[in-house]
């Protein structure tokens, strides 16, 4: 779960990381009064879960409350990388003497959290990593021990030769680890970590991605979720045990297992079709789940055909077939033409059940994909 900047800054603040004392607003009028409260100049920043806001015109400096109003009016409703701007952060503007980077994420290969820092902050860190990798310093973190002071100082003195600034930066790094660990993040990032003209060090931007697996430990964080419309759909799916990602194509997919679902999308694409979604219905085959899954597919008007691809493993094919039949009987709305592929444990029995219901199930995945593409091409009359 990605947090927006204002949420991440709030958490940073709770962990003692210095952040600008800004105000989140949702209207131009609120932006104006925030600017009055904070004291101008202020920066008005679009709150979207995407990078490159500055380039897209989503960040504006305002010298007066009136300017803040205008800036807010121009940014609200903007589309930044397909995210619609609904919230703004009004931060006090500061005089920046230098921009740095510091972040912590999990290194999958080392199986450890790693802290990255660079004196080249304020820009896309992946670009820095690609172009000038020697400008990024790494510090492995033993997660049982946490980031230690001496480790933070080793990095901090590489960024700041000055003692006071180095110790301030080291302290921020320690708190950043505390935050990463405390909220079970998979990424925390300060970019830029700014040195101001008065010599203080402050987090001017904030990024936190939370580990969805750990949300059970932090139930209140669930309330911080601000889903976009497409995410709402994905979340709703998740609450029914479905893993769903909407795409642009016209063949709805319903598959048991994430890997097989990706393989299904790949084969559709390989054969010249376009998948409308990723949809993993998981291991169980309860009719409710299948109904929800079907409703998800139907709600996407792009979908011209549906390819149900099930490999009966522990979940037996006859059970899946029974669930499917129950679901199809339940669904009242018109549904696009279906292709069902069913194989694995008890496949003969499963195919018979479907056949009794008037559905011919296929046993081969490629054949199924080809048939779905053909049906979608026909324009979707069932």
């Amino acid at each position: 779960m990605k947090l927006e900047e204002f949420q991440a800054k709030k958490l940073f603040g709770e962990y003692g990381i210095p952040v600008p004392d800004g105000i989140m607003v949702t209207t131009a009028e609120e932006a104006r009064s925030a600017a009055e409260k904070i004291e101008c100049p202020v920066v008005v920043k679009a709150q979207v879960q995407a990078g490159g806001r500055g380039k897209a015109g989503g960040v504006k400096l305002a010298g007066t409350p009136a300017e803040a109003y205008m800036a807010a009016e121009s940014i609200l409703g903007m589309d930044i990388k397909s995210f619609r701007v609904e919230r703004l952060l009004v931060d006090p503007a500061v005089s920046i003497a230098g921009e740095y980077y510091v972040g912590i994420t999990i290194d999958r290969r080392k199986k450890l959290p790693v802290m990255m820092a660079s004196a080249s902050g304020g820009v896309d860190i992946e670009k820095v990593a690609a172009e000038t990798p020697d400008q990024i310093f790494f510090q492995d973190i033993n997660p049982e021990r946490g980031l230690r002071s001496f480790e933070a100082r080793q990095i901090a003195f590489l960024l700041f030769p000055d003692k006071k600034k180095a110790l301030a930066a080291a302290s921020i790094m320690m708190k950043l680890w505390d935050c990463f660990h405390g909220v079970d993040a998979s990424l925390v990032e300060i970019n830029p970590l700014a040195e101001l003209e008065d010599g203080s060090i402050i987090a001017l931007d904030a990024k936190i991605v939370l580990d969805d697996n750990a949300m059970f430990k932090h139930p209140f964080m669930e309330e911080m979720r601000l889903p976009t419309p497409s995410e709402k759909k994905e979340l709703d799916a998740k609450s029914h045990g479905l893993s769903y990602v909407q795409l642009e194509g016209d063949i709805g997919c319903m598959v048991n297992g994430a890997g097989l679902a990706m393989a299904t999308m790949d084969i559709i694409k390989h054969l010249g079709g376009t998948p409308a979604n990723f949809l993993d219905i998981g291991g169980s085959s309860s009719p409710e789940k299948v109904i929800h899954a079907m409703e998800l597919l139907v709600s996407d008007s792009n979908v011209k055909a549906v390819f149900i691809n099930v490999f009966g493993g522990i979940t037996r094919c006859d059970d899946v077939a029974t669930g499917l039949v129950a679901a199809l009987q339940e669904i009242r709305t018109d549904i696009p033409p279906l292709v069902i592929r069913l194989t694995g444990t008890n496949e003969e029995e499963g195919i018979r059940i479907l056949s009794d219901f008037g559905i011919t199930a296929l046993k081969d995945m490629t054949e199924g994909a080809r048939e779905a593409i053909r049906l979608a091409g026909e324009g979707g009359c069932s």
Partner: protein
Amino acid sequence: MSILIDENTRVMVQGLGRDGSFHAKQMKEYGTNIVAGVHPGKGGSIIHGFPVFNTAKDAARETDPECSVIFVPAPFAADAILAAANAGAALVVAVTEGIPVLEMSKIVIELNELGTRLAGPNCPGLISPAKSKIGIMPGGIFRKGPVGVVSRSGTLTYEVVNQLTLAGYGQSTAIGMGGDPVVGMKYDDYLELFEDDKETELVVIVGEIGGTDEQDAATFVKERISKPVVGYIVGRSAPPGKRMGHAGAIISGADSTAEAKVVFLRDKGIPVADTVEQIVDLVGERLGGRN
């Protein structure tokens, strides 16, 4: 031969709730040598013919298992893995899905210290056909043979194995290594074991978007593996930045796309299949059409 498990492997099952109990029965029926179960509060009872203990330590003292399979719910699963390892299990298979990644990151350190191998978490387990299966794989689709299979996925593994079996290519051992960002053993670890296993003649590695495990595997194959290896990578049609069910399957950088992986593998001399059918073709070519 086979890797990690065979018909003699003494297995303990941790977490005998609905799923654990169901799969313990399946495993037993497949022939797995289950010697003990562990479930706090069920100590002293007998389930599916094996004794159940309150703690892994008790089970270890009484039944000396070499391997433990974890069905414990996510909030308690990391602790259960440690309990197994500290009780002396040489191999732990963690089926449980949804363990926080930082917890995994912590416990792999201790597992290394203890010399315990971990398969998973969030994995279907492993199977040495006709000998033993540990986890939740559907035993029926497997057949004993010369192909090692190691995959990050569950049902996709079954799909691959099923087509291999139908084409007559049985398996020495098949492993779902798990789809999480931090898992215990990775391709390299399994490949090394397959290399030393007399029964295995060829290894299929099934990969997906996210991370760079497949690249690491390819580098490892080039440097250390003499047996033929065939690759298959799913997720070519996945959009960037999206999580495709597996927590591990997030495209985070250029290296973690399916395309990058396919190119990298081919570059290291590993043939990569575009479809599951092609896997069978590639395997067939390398095993000389024998089936």
